[in-house]
């Protein structure tokens, strides 16, 4: 069996089994976050809150899957376990960071996959694997038991082949938790305004692959039959998509530096009496992979040398959240493509530019604490995003759109 996506098999052939990303705590299992620093070292004594809620409804985790190291990255690669290849075409990548769970769901080895998202880590691999991928609002699901990457952006998310499964899981795990101070109450009442916002075609055209753009226009035309479509300005595109990508990278890196500060090798490691002091240091310190090291170095540099840039990013983020909140006062959500192309080859994934473009349409949603769902439609991947707390409305609209497409 190809094991490029599974790290531990818990229960085989369990009908209600779901796949879990390697950064969500399962009692007495090695939760390694695909990092050498935790591999075979960290065995939590508790289940994550979301796992507890699913266990109570007779769902069982059946495997722990690979991801990018500490969920940092968009291609599904870690220095420890290598790259996760696409199940359909082994020249392509699955995307990340929740790569393993998407591959498992694609292969029907799990009915859904539970992962985490910081800047689109559920929607990107979900889109590349042609799956429904839902990221709830920040605070909708408890983060207790999720090894944090960036505390203000992290959220639990899930992927499945059917939208019904996505909604079922949402009904179970969207709950407030008294142990998570950022947890919020999500309204289950649905208020539809039948109005959807989209970005201007000329703005998107520059960044999308020709095929994706053509299909996107078709979907938009179809949508306009049932929804009132409002086009956002060029300035909106610059503020929401372009500026946000930079701010996302700064904020997530700085918070990652803070969250990963504890993995410095002092705790969670055992020294070997036979080792010399320098060997011990080499074994236990500085053993993050390349992606993580790059980000940590970047974050330290920003905080030490240019703290104003970080402060500006925080300010921009607050303004963005307020701005989108006013934009969405009279609309249901923003509709846009998830990815600039449908598949990405392994060779392409090594190019820096591809990496930067991977999360450009998704990371802004995490900055505004919003919710988003990726949907495979008309053989491309599109996403519908809403503001914080609109989870069930977004799921309802997504479900309506899918059923209309099926009927036609």
């Amino acid at each position, binding site marked *: 069996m190809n094991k490029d996506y599974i790290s531990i098999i818990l229960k085989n052939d369990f009908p209600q089994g779901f796949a879990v990303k390697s*950064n*969500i*705590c399962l009692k007495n299992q090695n*939760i390694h*976050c695909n990092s050498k620093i*935790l591999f075979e070292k*960290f065995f*939590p*004594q*508790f289940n*994550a809150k979301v796992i507890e809620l699913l266990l109570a409804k007779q769902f069982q985790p059946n495997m722990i899957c690979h991801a990018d190291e500490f969920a940092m990255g968009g291609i599904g690669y870690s220095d420890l376990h290598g790259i996760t290849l696409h199940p359909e075409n082994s020249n392509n990548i699955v995307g990340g960071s929740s790569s393993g769970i998407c591959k498992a769901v694609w292969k029907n080895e799990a009915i859904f996959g539970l992962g985490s998202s910081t800047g689109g880590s559920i929607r990107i691999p979900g889109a590349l694997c042609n799956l429904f991928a839902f990221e709830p609002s920040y605070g909708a699901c408890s*983060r*207790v*038991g*999720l*090894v*944090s990457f960036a*505390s*203000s952006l992290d959220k639990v998310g899930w992927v499945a082949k059917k939208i019904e499964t996505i909604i079922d899981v949402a009904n179970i795990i969207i709950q407030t938790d*008294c*142990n*998570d*101070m*950022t947890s919020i109450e999500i309204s289950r009442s649905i208020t539809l305004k039948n109005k959807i916002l989209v970005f201007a075609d000329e703005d998107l055209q520059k960044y999308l692959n020709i095929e994706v753009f053509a299909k996107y226009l078709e979907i938009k035309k179809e949508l306009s039959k049932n929804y009132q479509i409002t086009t956002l300005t060029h300035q909106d595109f610059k503020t929401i998509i372009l500026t946000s990508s930079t701010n996302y990278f700064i904020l997530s890196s*700085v*918070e990652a*530096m*803070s969250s990963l*500060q*504890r*993995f*410095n090798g*002092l*705790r969670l490691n055992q020294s070997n009496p036979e080792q010399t002091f320098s060997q011990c240091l080499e074994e236990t310190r500085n053993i993050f992979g390349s992606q993580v090291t790059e980000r940590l170095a970047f974050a*330290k540099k920003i*905080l*030490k040398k240019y*703290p104003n840039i*970080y402060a500006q990013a*925080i300010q921009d983020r607050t303004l963005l959240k307020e701005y989108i909140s006013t934009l969405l006062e009279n609309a249901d959500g923003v509709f846009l493509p998830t990815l600039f192309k449908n598949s990405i080859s392994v060779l392409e994934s090594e190019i820096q530019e591809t990496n930067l473009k991977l999360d450009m349409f998704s990371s802004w949603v995490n900055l505004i604490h919003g919710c988003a769902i990726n949907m495979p439609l008309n053989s491309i991947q599109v996403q519908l995003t809403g503001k914080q707390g609109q989870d069930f409305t977004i799921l309802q609209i997504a479900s309506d759109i899918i059923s209309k497409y099926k009927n036609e």
Partner: protein
Amino acid sequence: MNNNFFKHKIGIETHIRLNTKNKLFCSCENNTTDAAIINENICAICTGTPGILPNLNLECVDMGIKLSSALNCDIPKILCFDRKHYDFPDMGKMRQTTTESTPLGKNGGLQLSEVIVTFEKLALEEDAAQTIKTACSFTINDNRAGSPLMEITTSPCFSTSNQVIEYLKVLKNLCGALKIVDTSNSSSVRSDINISVQYIINKEIIQGERVEIKNMNSLSGIKQALAFEFARHEQLLLENKIILRETLGWNATDGKTYFMRSKEEENDYLFIPEYDIAPINIEHRIISQDNPFNFFFKIKELEQLDEDRLNRLFDLLSILDFNIFIFETDISKIKFLIDIFSIEFLQNKINVKQANLIFELFKQKKTDLKQIKKNMHDLNESFDLFMFNIEIKFINLELIKEFIMKIKTEHKDETKDFLLKIIVQHFAKILPNQKINFTEVLQILN
């Protein structure tokens, strides 16, 4: 006159360990006396296990608000926490959670006999683990990790060690009266002392670098350490040598300070907001909790006022900052206040004009009894008589007995203890002058 002289500046950063039931972010017991067994009182939160989120204990915030208002500080409406990063192994998370950007108190003040202490900030933060070093091992004891601390930072307003010692005594008494600190534990109040020396030669100032002496918890130690450091700084300045900016420790047996580390720049802590803890709206907590105003109310119960008189009293009090009642740590002054408000004023022995003047004097923090007496005397001759009435009130043992019995029967435990404590201390001060046997009073109390 000698034109060359030294000017000393001292600022104090005091860490007070709050005596809450639980730790700041978890439900572990907050043992103010350290448990004997290493790592006995720990959980996933206070050891910084990955995947665990902090859960703020609001009792700590309430205690912080109490202290902050007692020290006349501005209290923020919203409380946000920050992460302070460092590389010492005594924190599981390798960072400390503190209220750096929105301190629980700012711009406070406290009047002492020689100096007005101004507070830069009062921050609520978590304690670090204890590190035990031996020749061949290094143990981290997490028992006290995550205990709530209040960090009280003064401006460099002190110039002598006597002022420092008076301040620390008053602060400890105040915390004891507010019941936020276990005063029986010597390690519950720890101070870091920042000092610098200026050498003034013919009006030209040579500024010496600031050094910090860490973890001082004995008053005699502070006095010795300050004397030692000032002498060292003065010697270096006289010899025209450089004073390094560093952090020092105090060795009580040698009577010398020793080098610990060179002082980090503030930016090295890389402060960022703590997003795991949602901002706390503390405005409504101030109204609902046991704040200084309510505290005063307990004292006032002493005389079992009727509603009408109570209202009049409250009208008068509205012109005054209520913090003054906590602010007064000198017990005789508290007693004085009780007397004025609850006895004399309500028996119409002083008029509103006189009472207003007293309030004004208190507001200006001129709380010296003699000063008030003098000012009042200028206004009204009968005031002398009024003062006399207060001071002789408890001389009669029968009256004392009656008064104490009243407190014992009419008040619940906490209030009773507090009031009895006031009375004992009050008697300890005034009775010897009145030639009354103090042991006799104590017998009645027991």
